[in-house]
């Protein structure tokens, strides 16, 4: 059976889920999109010598966590794409709680090693706490660069760190190796957030980040750095729902150096991640290495394209 179908089937066996149609639908709809991030535990499991089947429970946990985190995030952002518009905020909050609990249920099944299981449960629960705090901080709209990195390291990094750590524990890694992979995953999560921010700030019509006065990294750069069009950029932000204003603001993001800064941050984090990866005693580092490559290769290609 295909791995995402296995994950959906496993989820449907959880307590209460057989009777809870809305929870099943949300999970199945998400799994049908085959999110790449759900495969991160598999990559970690393979890198420590395990098989993909060993990582199914960890995949279910990451899938449940992803669905639950997204339900809450959409409500905090008022995102027009959020499921809460269809099912209502009370039901969405209820389901987010259920997905968090289901994720921990899945973690309790990801390894037979009792010490590893306890570490996995503690670390996964800690991930939820940190992510919730990060979402809270993000909703306050970070006003400077230091606050931005604090949000990134709480809202995004813990999820990806946990994804690699759970996969490693499921594959039989030592606690030390799994912890090293968690640290690498946190850095990977920062890179994902920078990608996310670059993408969101270039979308049209304006992404909710623009409309609600949030500051993804490129927008923060163009708002804070003293460049010739800083004043104009701040004016445009006031009318960002108008397409011409959005287009002009996006042009300023590009030629103020905001996108260049994001690319530089991605490259620096990639280089640090490579050093971390080289220090982890993995049987096969390639599956994890490919995760990092998938984020940095398009950036290098873009840099090369500018040479021609």
């Amino acid at each position, binding site marked *: 059976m295909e791995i995402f179908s296995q994950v959906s089937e496993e989820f449907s066996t959880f307590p209460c889920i057989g009777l809870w149609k809305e929870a099943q639908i949300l999970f199945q709809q998400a799994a*049908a999109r085959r*999110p790449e991030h759900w495969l991160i535990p598999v990559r970690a499991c393979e890198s420590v010598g395990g098989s993909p089947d060993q990582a199914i429970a960890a995949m279910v946990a990451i899938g449940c966590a992803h669905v639950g985190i*997204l339900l809450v995030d959409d409500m905090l952002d008022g995102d027009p794409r959020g499921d809460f518009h269809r099912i209502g905020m009370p039901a969405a909050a209820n389901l987010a709680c259920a997905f968090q609990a289901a994720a921990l249920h899945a973690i309790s099944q990801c390894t037979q090693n009792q010490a590893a299981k306890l570490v996995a449960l503690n670390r996964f629960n800690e991930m939820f706490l940190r992510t919730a705090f990060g979402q809270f901080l993000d909703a306050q709209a970070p006003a400077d660069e230091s606050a931005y990195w604090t949000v990134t390291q709480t809202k995004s990094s813990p999820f990806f760190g946990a994804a690699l750590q759970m996969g490693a524990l499921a594959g039989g890694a030592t606690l030390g190796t799994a912890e090293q992979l968690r640290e690498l995953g946190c850095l990977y999560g920062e890179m994902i957030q920078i990608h996310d921010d670059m993408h969101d700030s270039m979308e049209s019509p304006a992404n909710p980040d623009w409309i609600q006065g949030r500051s993804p990294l490129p927008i923060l750069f163009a708002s*804070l750095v003293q*460049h010739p069009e800083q004043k104009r950029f701040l004016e445009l932000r006031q009318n960002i729902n108008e397409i011409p204003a959005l287009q002009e603001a996006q042009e300023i993001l590009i030629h103020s150096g905001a996108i*260049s*800064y994001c690319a530089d941050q991605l490259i620096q984090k990639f280089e640090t991640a490579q050093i971390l990866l080289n220090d982890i005693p993995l049987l096969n580092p390639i599956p994890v290495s490919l995760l990092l490559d998938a984020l940095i290769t398009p950036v290098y290609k873009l840099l090369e394209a*500018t040479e021609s």
Partner: protein
Amino acid sequence: MNMQAFYKQLSNKPSQVHKHRLANLMLVSRTQILDTTKAGTWLIWNAEAPIA
């Protein structure tokens, strides 16, 4: 290096190859950036294509 320091370096005719290439990114298009970053999004579902 924070964003202020980075901007100073970038706007000061960067001589290093790496910084020169980063300065070239100030000339790319919005579409090129969207293409470059489409693989890395995570807090939206439309990052992945639903299976029919």
